[in-house]
């Protein structure tokens, strides 16, 4: 397994079509080592999803993309575009244009990251997850990942935990884990009605992810963080916090939608900054996280 340097990570919540050339330029200026996309790239149409892959492929820093539930119906075409763009980037490098680094898909995969605090394993959980206790899009998952049920997903995630060579693990998922609560301000509580189903759970987290986290801890692993999106924050007047510290793990909901907003000073672009290196005033926390906006001249607020 290649080891990726990742002291400085930018987490990008649900994109939903909000990614432009300013993002490609500014994230390389910021000097991040890795961009983590938690999914839902397009606005819902195949055309927009493909367009997002095309735009992300121009990134000048490495990016890992975990498909979200909105990407699921277009997974075939997103994968085709990604393959084409990756090949094109290889050819551009061949002829002397090395700037384009682009993105790689992840899902049921493990990625060893090196940081100044030591190595850790980033485990990308089930793609296209959307909570509620079900395995969403089983046909697409079966074709692309060979998994079509929650039970199979748990098994795959446990295998990835077993195969990890580091003590520290960070999970990235599209939707967060079950077990963090069902109240409106909880990170992955349900924020939409389900007809007359009064028994529908309010905690909309995913069970396979919570099982994997629990299993990792039981195996003596340290689960530093769990990063996800899906349940938008600040929608319909409700505001969820970005993070929660619970039983030694920092949980991050990075979904601020839309992530690009107009502002008197310019366009504001949202991301969550994750620093895994020691040396800042918050060095006692290995997993340092800060929610940020930037505009094109890098005035953070």
């Amino acid at each position, binding site marked *: 397994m*290649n080891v990726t340097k990742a002291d400085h990570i930018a987490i990008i919540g649900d994109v939903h079509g909000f990614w432009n050339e300013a993002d490609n330029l500014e994230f390389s200026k910021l000097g991040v080592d890795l961009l983590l996309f938690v999914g839902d790239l397009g606005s819902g149409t195949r055309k927009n999803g493909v367009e997002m892959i095309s735009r992300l492929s121009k990134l000048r820093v490495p990016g*890992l993309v975990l498909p979200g539930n909105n990407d699921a119906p277009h997974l*075939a075409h997103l*994968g*085709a575009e990604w393959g084409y763009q990756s090949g094109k980037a290889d050819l551009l490098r*061949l*002829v002397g244009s090395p700037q384009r680094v682009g993105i790689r898909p992840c899902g049921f995969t493990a990625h060893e990251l090196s940081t100044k605090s030591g190595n850790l394993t980033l485990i990308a959980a089930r793609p296209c997850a959307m909570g509620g206790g079900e395995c969403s899009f089983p046909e697409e998952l079966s074709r692309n990942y060979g998994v079509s049920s929650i039970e199979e997903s748990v098994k795959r995630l446990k295998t990835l935990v077993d195969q990890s060579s580091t003590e520290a693990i960070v999970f990235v998922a599209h939707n967060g884990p079950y077990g963090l609560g069902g109240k409106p301000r909880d990170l992955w509580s349900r924020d939409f009605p389900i007809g007359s189903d009064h028994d529908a759970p309010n905690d909309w987290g995913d069970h396979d992810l919570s099982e994997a986290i629990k299993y990792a801890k039981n195996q003596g692993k340290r689960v530093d963080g769990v990063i996800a999106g899906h349940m938008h924050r600040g929608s319909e007047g409700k505001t969820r916090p970005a993070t929660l510290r619970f039983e030694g793990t920092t949980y991050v909901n990075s979904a601020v939608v839309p992530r690009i907003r107009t502002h008197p000073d310019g366009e504001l672009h949202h991301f969550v900054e994750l620093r895994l290196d020691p040396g800042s005033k918050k060095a006692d926390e290995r997993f340092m996280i800060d929610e940020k906006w930037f505009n094109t001249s890098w005035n953070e607020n």
Partner: protein
Amino acid sequence: MKLDTPLVQRLRDHLIQQSRASFAPLHGTSTAQCGSEEEAAILERFRPFGELLFLVAQADGQVEKEERSLMKGAFHVLTAGRVRGTVLAQLENELASALKEHGVEARLEAVCNALSHNREDAELALSLASAVALADFKIDANEALLISQLASWLGIPKTRANELLSIGHQSIPPRPPLG
């Protein structure tokens, strides 16, 4: 327009080398299942490039061995190796049928029109077409004229076309590792 440039030579050599590689998926991805939605989408994305390369390759009446190798290399690279190599032979048969039915001019017009909607696609297509023309290590007047016409049909100005085919003297940077 000068086609026998270091860039086009490098592109040709790379793609021919890729054609000899095993058809294992690139970048750690999985192979698309035969006949699946994924395979169809990958072929749909590659098809205009494949057709353009095929039309350039058969411009002198037949597709030579080196030209076929280059097409195979381009197929491998631009599909991330996710589709079996045998599918390319099926695609070539389809393209040959379309050529027979509609004629070379109509097919070139259609494929250049499809590729011209995206500037990057158009420019990549021109570079790849030039590499196919140089596949047998020589460029004749007809091939040079065809590439020049292609640039025009793809909406690429002559100065940009010359620029595209003449840059590329830098060393090849490695792909950044990402596990």
